[in-house]
């Protein structure tokens, strides 16, 4: 008897709660469904197709010097690819610069293969030399999958880049007054049904930095971090960030450093 009463009360309470929160509930289920969708497409990431092509390009002699990229130093010594993406961006003594993966690869292509970096900078994404770059990036980042993000700001130039990046993250401009922070500085926010990681915190930064580069299902393309940032700025209604420019490297440094300790999940699979 008592049990029945309790049960009845509990049911009543549940019904009330359900009615009260029905709209919240509907929203919650919509985001849950999106999570289910993502789970379903997680198997069979087309990034693999790029990664295979990238490995070939890494080992194939090219450029005026007809050399491979196998001696490229990504920060762990000449030719070490395994784990390299997890510790970028970083300071490189030979260029006296902080470089991200793509700007470093341009250096390697220039020094080892004799290719002109300007051609890479000027090329459109997904075309010409950029297509090669994208495949090579897919190959390199796959070899850090599962590693911990481990970016250093010990060198003064690294620290400086981090500080510049942090400032750039909050820099508003354009006809919509947007900065990166407009969308990525609070927890629990969404655009439409897409969760927005809070990049100012470790957890959110790892969600962002750790999953790019990624295959983007909406465009059917593999996007490097440079292209990801480029399209962020496009949507922010900014002018065009030059490929490998300091603002892109500074932002990468800020995101990567904030994400330290998170896991490299690249190449990711994104909407």
């Amino acid at each position: 008897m008592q049990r029945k009463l309790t049960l009845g009360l509990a049911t009543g309470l549940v019904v009330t709660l359900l009615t009260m929160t029905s709209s919240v509930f509907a929203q919650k289920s919509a985001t849950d469904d999106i999570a289910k969708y993502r789970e379903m497409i997680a198997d069979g990431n087309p990034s693999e197709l790029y990664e295979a092509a990238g490995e070939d390009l890494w080992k194939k002699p090219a450029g005026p010097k007809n050399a491979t990229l196998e001696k490229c130093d990504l920060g762990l010594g000449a030719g070490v690819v395994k784990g390299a993406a997890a510790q970028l961006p970083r300071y490189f003594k030979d260029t006296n610069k902080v470089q991200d993966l793509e700007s470093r690869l341009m250096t390697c292509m220039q020094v080892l293969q004799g290719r002109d970096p300007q051609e890479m900078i000027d090329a459109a994404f997904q075309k010409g030399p950029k297509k090669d770059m994208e495949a090579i990036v897919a190959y390199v980042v796959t070899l850090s999958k599962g590693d911990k993000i481990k970016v250093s700001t010990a060198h003064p130039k690294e620290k400086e880049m981090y500080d510049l990046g942090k400032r750039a993250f909050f820099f508003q401009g354009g006809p919509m007054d947007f900065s990166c922070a407009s969308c990525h500085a609070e927890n629990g926010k969404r655009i439409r049904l897409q969760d927005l990681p809070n990049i100012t915190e470790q957890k959110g930064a790892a969600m962002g930095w750790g999953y790019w580069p990624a295959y983007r299902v909406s465009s059917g393309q593999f996007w490097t971090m440079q292209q990801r940032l480029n399209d962020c700025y496009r949507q922010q209604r900014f002018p065009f960030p030059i490929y490998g420019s300091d603002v892109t490297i500074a932002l990468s440094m800020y995101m990567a450093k904030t994400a330290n300790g998170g896991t490299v999940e690249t190449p990711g699979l994104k909407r």
Partner: protein
Amino acid sequence: MADPMRVRAAENGGTVDVKILMKHDMEAGQRKDAAGKTIPQWFISTINVKANGKDVFNGQFGPAVSKDPFLNFKYKGAKGDKITVTWIDNKADKRTDEATVS
């Protein structure tokens, strides 16, 4: 020439799980290029999978299959089976890749 596929095939309890990723634009003929011209249909139309020379799967795609198509199926087989995947598209371009069941 078409880009290579990724074929993964793993045996577990007498069943081989085959996962195939094909590199193809799968153009549906619905999009327009920068000049406003419709981009013509271009898609993989048939796919055949053999294990040790014997058909284990046949598929036909329309242009509504996603870009870089993914296919997963299972057949009764064993480790060491030689899997041969062939696709043909509507422009008669074709590609064959092989994998060994692990």
